[in-house]
Each structure stands twice: as C-alpha cells, then as structure tokens.
C-alpha cells in the first residue's frame, strides 16, 4: 500500500526525464546536421538540394545566369519572390553580373571560381550588404529572410546579397495612443524602421542594440535597445537571459515575449509596458529602462515597468506643468472610478443607505422602486452589457462602430430604464465607469482595472464597504509583492522617496527634475 502511494506521489524519475531531454536535443541536432553541409562545387546539386529543403515551393525563384559573358561561369540566383526587391535584383545583381562585368573579369580568374567569387563580392555587386558563406544552412536561412543567394558553379562558397524589400505600412499616427499635443509618428511592423525611429530622437552614440532571434520556426528578430551609461546592466543581462530562454515555435507579436519574460504572468497587472509611440520609448530609455522591439508588430515593449507609468502619458510632459499635473490627477480619479464606482454603488445602496444624503436617497429609491433585482444583479447586468458593447464596437467595421455605440449606449440604456430593469443612477454609474476606464493612457492597465472591478463588486455585494476594503487590501498586497526585474512595482509610492514624487502623482516643472528616477538603479543619476 505504502509502495503504491509512493509510486503515485513520486514524480517521474529525473534520470528518465534527462534521458528524454537528451534524446530530444539529439534529434534536433541531427536534424540541423542534415541541413548543415557545405555547398558542393556542383551547381545543379546545390540547387536541387535547396529546392529539396524548401519542398519545391512555388515562390522560390531560381534564376540561372552566365557571368560576364563567359559561358563557363555559370551561376544561379536563388530568392523568395515577394520578400525581395525586384529592382535591386534586376539592376544591381543581375545587371551588374551579366552586363557590367562583360569583359572586365581578369583573365586569370575566369577559370578559378573560388577567388572569382571573392572578386565579385569586392568589385562586382552594387549591393550594400554582401556576405560570403560556406554553409547551405546559412543560405537557406538567408533566403528565408529575404536575401538573394548567388551560387557559382565550381565554387563551394556562395554570396548572400541583401535584396530585402517587401510591402510595408508607412509610418502612421498611432491608433491606440493618440495625444492632443505631441509627435504623430508611430511604430510600424518593420524592426529596422522602428529602431530608426528611436535613433532619430536619441542621437546618442551610447545607444546599444542587442539582436536576438526567437521562435524555432518564425525566427523572429528581436532587438533590445538601451542606453549604456544610464541603464543598469544587470537588468539588460537578465532580459537577454529571459528572451534566450524562450522555447516556442512561433513569436507572432511582442505579447508572446511579454508573457514569457514577465515576472508574474498570472497577475492581472501588466509588468511590462507596450507602446506605439517612439517618443515614449525614447523618454523611457532616458529614464534607464530598456526597449524590446519585435519584428512584425508596431508594439514595442518597455521593461521594467512600474505601476505609476501606466497612468502617465507623453502629453503630461509636453503641456505646461500645471496642466500636465492636473491631467494626471484627473486620470487617477477616473481610473479609481473605473475600479470602484459600481462596487461603491452596490455597497451604499444595499448596506449603507444612511450615508447617502436623504434627498438623493429618496430619488434613488424612486428610481429603484420598479427594479426587481438587488443592486448587485442590476450592476452585473449593466456592466456585462457595457463590456459586450465595448468588445463589439472594436470588432465592428469602421463606419458603423460609432452608430452601434450610440444605439447601445443611449437607446438600450434609455429603454432599460424605461422598462424598469435598471435604475437611472445605475446607468450613470456604468457610463462613468466605462468612460473612466478609457481615460487611462495604456490599454492593458485599463483592462486590468476593468477586470478587477468584478471581484470587488462581488465583495461589495457580500460585505459592503468592509468587503471593498478587504478586496482592495488583497490587491494592495499583490501589488506590493510584484517585483518586475527586481524593482518594486509600486516604487516611489512604496518604498517612498520624496524626490521621485516629482513625477509620480503630479509632474513638477521639467527644469526642476534634475535627477533621474531612482528605482531603476541608473548609473548616471542626473539629467542635467
């Protein structure tokens, strides 16, 4: 019996797990070995090999050419149609190799393909980035990212010419983070454009870009950007380690990376910020944070993020300090509305009616007299309805989105009140809650607040204000326990530092903020 128990409780023996892991790694290695053979000097063999690996895909283009009119110099260009710039291939690769080299190849090289290919690299191709390679694996990888491979008959060396060019969106105004005042350019889906947008703002030679690849199949390019001399190097190392540890086949958006490298993925609060705005990234780099740019998405990650930066907007700094501070305070109030208003309504109307001024109480009671449900049911009904509306209006095609908003918000709300399903006050509460949650400048923190509102509503329905406070304390404990990249999530509120309050609840005039925020352990502590 005891033995049986032990067998059930005992986890799989470590030896077996190790063996399995070894086997997996071994098979992976052997798979790579198959690909990783040097190109042979026979051109046809190489071409057929590449075709084999790529499974004769229809977008794989193999173009056989003859270099410089010498019939013995057979070559082939291999690239993927659509990932390459046709003009570059036509004019600067094929044009150069076939026409411009006519009669210019040194006579002694025409019979020696090996030195010839180096000569072509140095003086033949009019392409900015050409790398020689001796591995078929590298050739295939290069073709997959949009390079053009040039293979020469008789040589086991090949050239990889950068001819990348694909359809891309132009730099556009960010859709999710619009501001009244501030730059209008936003990130796009191309990694290089994004790094350039940041570089355009920070002409600092100390900017460092670390390039990584994640995703065994998508091989997504990831770049970590930070300013050396400001950034705490420990955090950079940790970020690189975490990104390298990601084991997944596909990284399609920066959200994948975010969820892998977050300290507490189960928390409702985001510990890494995402943004579409290059100016925001630049300002965070200056504060000693790092940016993680992922190819294929306009959302750049900023890590480590602390709670206060989720209600900060770049606009706070562009407007004058009184306006910026007031906007920030209003934002905090509206976010607390989004979190607490429905639950306070429930608590007041069902547990503490004595707190409401008597005249208002009479009006509320009159409004509620036809409502058949207790206030918590009423609140849940309306809140869920409004969440459905919100989600639906995101999915709706552009022109009818606002219409549905009006129909949903006004018509349904009005009709619900007239039908006596909800009270008019409830409609006010729900609309304030929803509007309040959209005042938050970052979408993901607004979502987390909107989500947490439901458990608080349940607590309020059970225990009134006592319940709300207990729920809040639980949230506070959780917030205090979060430490993204070792930095307390509520930094500058707790652990309290008076100097960091310059840019937490309000914002002091910019000339007064001479120091960088302390929580990020910046190497260079002063701004000016």
């Amino acid at each position, binding site marked *: 019996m005891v033995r049986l128990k032990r067998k059930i409780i005992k986890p799989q023996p470590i030896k077996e797990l190790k063996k399995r892991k070894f086997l997996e790694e071994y098979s992976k290695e052997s798979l790579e070995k198959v690909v990783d053979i040097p190109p042979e000097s026979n051109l046809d063999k190489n071409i057929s090999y590449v075709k084999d690996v790529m499974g004769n895909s229809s977008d794989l283009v193999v173009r056989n050419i003859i270099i410089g009119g010498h019939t013995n110099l057979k070559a082939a260009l291999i690239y993927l149609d659509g990932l390459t710039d046709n003009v570059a291939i036509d004019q600067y690769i094929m044009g150069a190799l076939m026409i411009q080299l006519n009669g210019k190849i040194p006579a002694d090289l025409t019979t020696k393909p090996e030195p010839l290919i180096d000569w072509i690299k140095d003086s033949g191709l009019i392409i900015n980035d050409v790398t020689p390679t001796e591995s078929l694996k590298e050739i295939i990888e290069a073709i997959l990212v949009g390079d053009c491979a040039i293979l020469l008959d008789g040589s086991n060396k090949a050239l990889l010419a950068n001819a990348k060019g694909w359809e891309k969106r132009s730099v556009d105004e960010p859709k999710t983070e619009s501001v009244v005042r501030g730059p209008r350019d936003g990130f796009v889906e191309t990694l290089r454009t994004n790094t350039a947008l940041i570089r355009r703002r920070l002409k600092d030679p100390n900017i460092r870009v670390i390039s990584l690849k994640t995703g065994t199949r998508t091989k997504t390019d990831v770049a970590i950007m930070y300013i050396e001399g400001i950034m705490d190097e420990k955090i950079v190392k940790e970020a690189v380690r975490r990104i390298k540890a990601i084991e997944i086949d596909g990284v399609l958006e920066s959200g994948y990376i975010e969820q892998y490298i977050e300290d507490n993925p189960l928390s409702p609060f985001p510990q890494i910020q995402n943004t579409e705005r290059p100016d925001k990234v630049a300002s965070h780099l200056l504060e000693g944070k790092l940016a993680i740019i992922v190819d294929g998405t306009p959302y750049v990650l900023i890590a480590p993020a602390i709670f206060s930066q989720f209600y900060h907007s770049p606009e706070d700094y562009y407007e004058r300090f009184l306006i910026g501070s007031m906007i920030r305070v209003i934002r905090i109030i509206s976010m607390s509305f989004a979190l607490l208003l429905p639950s306070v309504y429930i608590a007041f109307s069902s547990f503490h009616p004595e707190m409401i*001024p*008597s005249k208002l109480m009479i009006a509320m009671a009159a409004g509620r007299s036809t409502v058949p449900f207790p206030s918590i049911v009423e609140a849940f009904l309306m809140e869920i309805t409004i969440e459905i509306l919100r989600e639906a209006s995101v999915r709706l095609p552009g022109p009818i989105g606002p219409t549905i908003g009006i129909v949903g918000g006004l018509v349904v709300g009005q009709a619900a009140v007239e039908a006596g399903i909800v009270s008019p006050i409830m409609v006010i509460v729900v609309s304030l809650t929803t509007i309040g949650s959209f005042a938050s400048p970052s979408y993901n923190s607004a979502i987390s607040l909107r989500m947490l509102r439901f458990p608080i509503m349940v607590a309020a329905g059970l225990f009134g204000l006592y319940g709300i406070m207990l729920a809040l*304390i639980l949230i506070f*404990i959780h917030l205090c326990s979060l430490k993204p990249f070792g930095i307390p999530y509520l930094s500058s509120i707790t652990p309290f530092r008076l100097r960091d309050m310059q840019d937490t609840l309000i914002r002091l005039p910019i000339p007064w903020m001479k120091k960088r925020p302390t929580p990020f352990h910046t190497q260079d502590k002063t701004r000016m």
Partner: protein
Amino acid sequence: MGKQLADKRPISSRQAMSIVSSTILGVGVLTLPRVVASEAHEAGWIAILCGAFATSIVMIIVTKLGLRFPHLNFIETCSHVLGRDKGKSNKLGKLLSYPIIIILIAYYLVVAASISRTFGEVVVTAVLKETPLEVIIGTMLLTSLYLVKFDIDVLARLNELLLPLIVIPILLIALLSFQSFQLEFILPVWPGLSLSGFLKGVLLTMFAYQGYELILIFSNRIQIIKKSLWFNILGIIIPSVIYLLIVIAGISVFGDEELAILMWPTLEIIKVTEVPGMILERLESLFLGVWVAAVFTTTANFFYAITLLTQQVFGRGKRIWYGLGFTPIIFWLSLQPQNIIALFDFQQYIGYAGLTLGALIPAFLLIMAFIRKKGSSTGPLATKGPSAKEKSTAIQQE
C-alpha cells in the same frame, strides 16, 4: 561589509516607522476616549502624552537591543544573551530562550485574536448588522494569511502604503469634529484628580500603544542608519497625535462624564461630525470601511510575527503552512469571550500582559547583555575611523 548588510535588509527605516505606527493604530482608537475619560477625566489628553512618553522610553530600549545585535534575529539574540558565547554549541541559551519565545507567541496569538474579535464586534454592531461575527473574523484572518505567504519586504511595503490611508481620514475626522467644540468641557486642565487615578489612566492609554514591540522581531531586517531610533520614535508619535486629537475631540464634544459611558466613543464622535458640502450624510460606515486597513495591518503584522517566530524556532518550513496551522487557533481564541463585556475585561488582562512582556523582555535582555558584555555596546554604526560615515551612507542606499 556595509554593502552586504544593506543587501540583506529589505526594510527601510521609513518602512520600520510605518510598521510601528500602523501596528499601534488598530482597534485601540475605537475605545480609547472612553477608557481615558473614565480614569483621567478632563486631563485625558495629558495622560495620552504621558503614555506616548513612557512608550517611547520602552521603544528606546527595544531599538537599542536591536542595534546591539544587528545581525541576529530575536531567537538568536535571546540564546546569545542567555547562553554561552558564539561558536560553541549553545544548547543552554536555546533552552533558556524557548520559554520566552513560547510566551511571546502565545501572547501574540491572543492579541491577534482579541483585535480581530473587537473589530468584528464593532462591524457587526455598527454596520453589517446581519452578518455573523465569525464571517468578519474569518475573512480578516484569511486576508492576513495571504500576506503571510510573502517575504518580509512585502509586509514593509504594504504598511508603508496603507499608513497614509489610515492616518489621513482619522485626522480629517478629528479635525472636522472640532465644529462642535465646547471649551467648558475640557476645562479645568487639571481636575481634582488623585495622582494614582491619573497614573491608572496613563497605564490604560499605554494599552493603546501596544504593537510597537513587534519591531523587535523584525529588527535584524531593518536598514540601520543614524536616525533609526528617531524613525522608530516617530512611529510612536504619529499614533499619539491621532490619539491626542481624537481624545480632545471626544472630551470637547461630549464632556468626560458622557464620554465615559459610550460603548464606541470614536464612532459617536464621527456620528456628530458633519461633512462640509453634505456629500455624505453619515460617516461611521465609511470610517469603519477605511479602518479595516488599520485593523488589518495590526492583525496581519502580529500574524506575520507569529509565523516568523515559529519558522525561526523550527528553522525550516514555509511560513504559509505555519500560518494555515495558526489560523484556526486564532479564530477559536477570538470566539472565547462570551460577550463584549467579557471581551473588554479580557483586553485589560492582555494590556497588562502586553506591558509586562513588551517592556520587560527587551529590558531584561538588554540588561543581561550589558552585564555579560555581549554585542557591540556602541551600535553597528559607531565603528572606528572615518569609514563610519561612509558605511552609514552605504547602508542607507539599498
């Protein structure tokens, strides 16, 4: 060495101050005006000041003891002071320190139970009239249990975060209630009062300052700076200011005779307070709602100290398991008093026990350490040479 010391110490001195303040501020404020008025009458506010002074003296002893053994936790301090020197097997010291630890744990358990019971009573009588008492106590303990799960820096940060939420509302209420201030109620300053009666009043106010002694348990995790002692004493000053204002408000609004017969005098003060603008008609529900935070920090800090001590005694295990084990014990203890009168009597005994334990144990240990010449008598910062100042700054930065 300074760097190492700082690395392991997650609690800043400001957080230590918050821990002291928010542990002291709890259910005491709900009954304090009655207790003071019944013993010290119009001179109640003087009693509060004397109580704060006496508590500060004990605080100095507690802090000095902590600074004398900056690297040892409480159990190690006990066994080191009572037993043989370090390096040799110290069975004697351990054996001698176990009774102290067990008495402390038992006392903390009773305190945590009585606090949650008192708050449960006031919530059930004033706000949630149909909710069973057990539910209030249970939810409070479970919320504390969630905190026990985390490391000590989370406790420190939570106390720092909640302290303004506790202090600002009660200060506002105390100030607002001065609307119905009547000067004749607080005069004469010194009524015909026997000294022994007044001293009893002081003693009773000192009960309301209980909780400061927890800093002893956490002391080896607190960053040491030159002003450590001042921060700890500031932690006593904050609640004493609140107590002072609320007692003056109570006496000036009701007079000491009437105040002495009110069951929950602070709630009565809040009831007569009017909010400017009439946004809210009555405030006591809101106050009790906010005061959940104050009571929570007291209960949870005691709970945390209990689990931390047991963990140190056994030297292994996760705190959450000890916490799970202690939750039903505290729950059961909290339901022992038959009614609220029995609870108040019970609290008196706890108060006496708290004064004895909170003051005598550290004083005894400090004297023993002094006699047996253990620990650094000058404190960790007053080391020789010019490096002392550098060290203190190094410690101050994390």
